[in-house]
């Protein structure tokens, strides 16, 4: 059975229908990406998964229905979000940001071990652990946002456009890290405009357009699909 199972998810803001009934699933250990252009409804979908905006439809995580739950209750069930635009706490230090990621955890030793692991994954954060997060560069903030989300030991990590606003080299570095996190057994759902990168690292992908899923399948197949190549890969 899939870890995350979404059926007929609809999200609207007043009269605007951002997501018009989509089905998708993520199996345990998978890296799945959701690609599409601006305004396709990708970010809305992620926000809906986390209860940040209300959705209708049937959303199940580990078989349990998430629809209608408040965000903090959904997070407590093992979902974590790296928000669009990173959403780090600018006036807290790097270390304090990481601690905030472990807000729901009480196991002091486990948190300490995970903090050490986060610093191994991102040595740059270790160097700057006492610095205010707002003074970090964009790439470092993205690293911090990912590290912070991992501090909650999520069983599903949601990433909202991790490449946004970053220099190409930094994007590559962030994606190498995402691939590494996936190899270590974390299940990931990545929303991305940069279809090229997303298809390279993911196993499966969904292509969204105007609030519906147009195409889906194994990433390597989609990367060769002429339609995709024309629309997203600039051929």
């Amino acid at each position, binding site marked *: 059975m899939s870890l995350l199972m979404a059926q007929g998810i609809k999200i609207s803001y007043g009269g605007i229908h951002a997501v018009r009934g989509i089905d998708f699933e993520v199996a345990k250990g998978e890296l799945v990406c959701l690609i599409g252009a601006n305004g396709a409804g990708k970010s809305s979908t992620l926000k809906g998964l986390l209860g940040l905006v209300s959705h209708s439809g049937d959303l199940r995580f580990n078989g349990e229905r998430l629809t209608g739950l408040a965000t903090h209750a959904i997070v407590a069930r093992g979902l974590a979000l790296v928000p669009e635009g990173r959403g780090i706490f600018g006036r807290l230090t790097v270390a304090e940001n990481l*601690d905030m990621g472990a807000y729901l955890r009480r196991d002091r030793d486990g948190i300490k071990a995970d903090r050490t692991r986060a610093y191994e994954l991102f040595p740059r954060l270790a160097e700057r652990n006492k610095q205010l997060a707002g003074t970090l*560069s964009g790439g470092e903030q993205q690293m911090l946002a990912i590290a912070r989300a991992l501090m*909650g030991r999520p069983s599903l990590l949601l990433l909202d456009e991790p490449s946004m606003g970053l220099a190409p080299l930094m994007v590559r570095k962030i994606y190498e890290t995402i691939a590494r996190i996936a190899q270590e057994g974390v299940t990931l759902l990545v929303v991305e405009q940069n279809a090229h990168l997303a298809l390279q690292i993911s196993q499966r992908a969904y292509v969204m357009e105007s609030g519906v899923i147009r195409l889906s399948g194994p990433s390597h197949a989609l990367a060769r699909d002429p339609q995709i190549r024309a629309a997203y890969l600039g051929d």
Partner: protein
Amino acid sequence: MNRALDGLRKRPRLTAILLAILLAALPFMMGFGLGNSWVRVLDFVLLYVLLAIGLNIVVGYAGLLDLGYIAFYALGAYLYAWLASPHFGLHLPFWLVLPIGAMLAGLFGVLLGAPTLRLRGDYLAIVTLGFGEIIRIFMNNLNAPFNLTNGPQGMNLIDPVSIAGFSFGKPLHVFGMTFPPTYFYYYLFLAFTLLAIFVALRLQDSRIGRAWAAIREDEIAAAAMGINTRNMKLLAFAMGATFGGLAGGLFAAFQGFISPESFNLWESILVLCMIVLGGMGNIPGVILGAVLLTAIPEALRYLGDFQRATLGHVAVDPADLRMLLFGVALVAMMLFRPAGLLPSRQRKREFAAEDGVAEQEQASLYDARA
């Protein structure tokens, strides 16, 4: 001077003892040095410190801009007057009335918080401002059909605080000296203020304090951390309002008279100015702001005497001059110390130059290549 301060920092116990002696002796120093009216000023300083600490929980910790804070002060004061004055013929003891007043204010804090959960910044400020005015206007008009608040005339003959048969309402004569009630209230207010400082400091470093900090920084990210943002925001409103209600009850007992005029918008803005001037989110800064903004206007009253002595007549009304200097002081502070006089570590850093960021971006790119 600096060396003396350093020395004190290294000896926290000695500092605490010296501070305790200073606080205990302060009303006598003020009373004998400057006259008994300054003991009254001291009492008001403590009340405003209490108010500022309460508002700092809402604005400084949780980042919710509340312009109607004085409404909670009013609720605490009116509840005290209802339960301990001839108005309804009730004369309950202060130790019972004060907690009820604080709890009522806290309840209203939640009532104000609940409909404003989705609002932030300017919109929240406008709604809270409206709330403050609603309470004041109610107090002004609830003398008919049923006389609840006695309208604009206000409520009179409110019972003074009385502890174990000793009433704070009458002056005390000992050793041929007379001590007015302001002395007793000083120690009572000091006890509550110290308690409030203790609670506020503990809250800041607690799980709740961290949740508030996260909400202040980024509400969506805070929710994504698993923080129950709704409850935490309501808790901030309730805690802040509780302190306001407590201060209001103390104010009613101290003055013996309250009217809606004491609870206008200016008071809300004054308390907000105290925490902004002192350094939002930082307790020592908030205390300093409250002390300065209460004591300086009092000191500026002497400008009238000064003009009479030098010019022979009063050229500019000291009251006008006070507002002018107040405005100048605020503008000057925004220019030279935008984060407040004693900013919290976080705010100091926020306002500091961030030259290093561009360099870091370069450095991280270099890392990525390696």
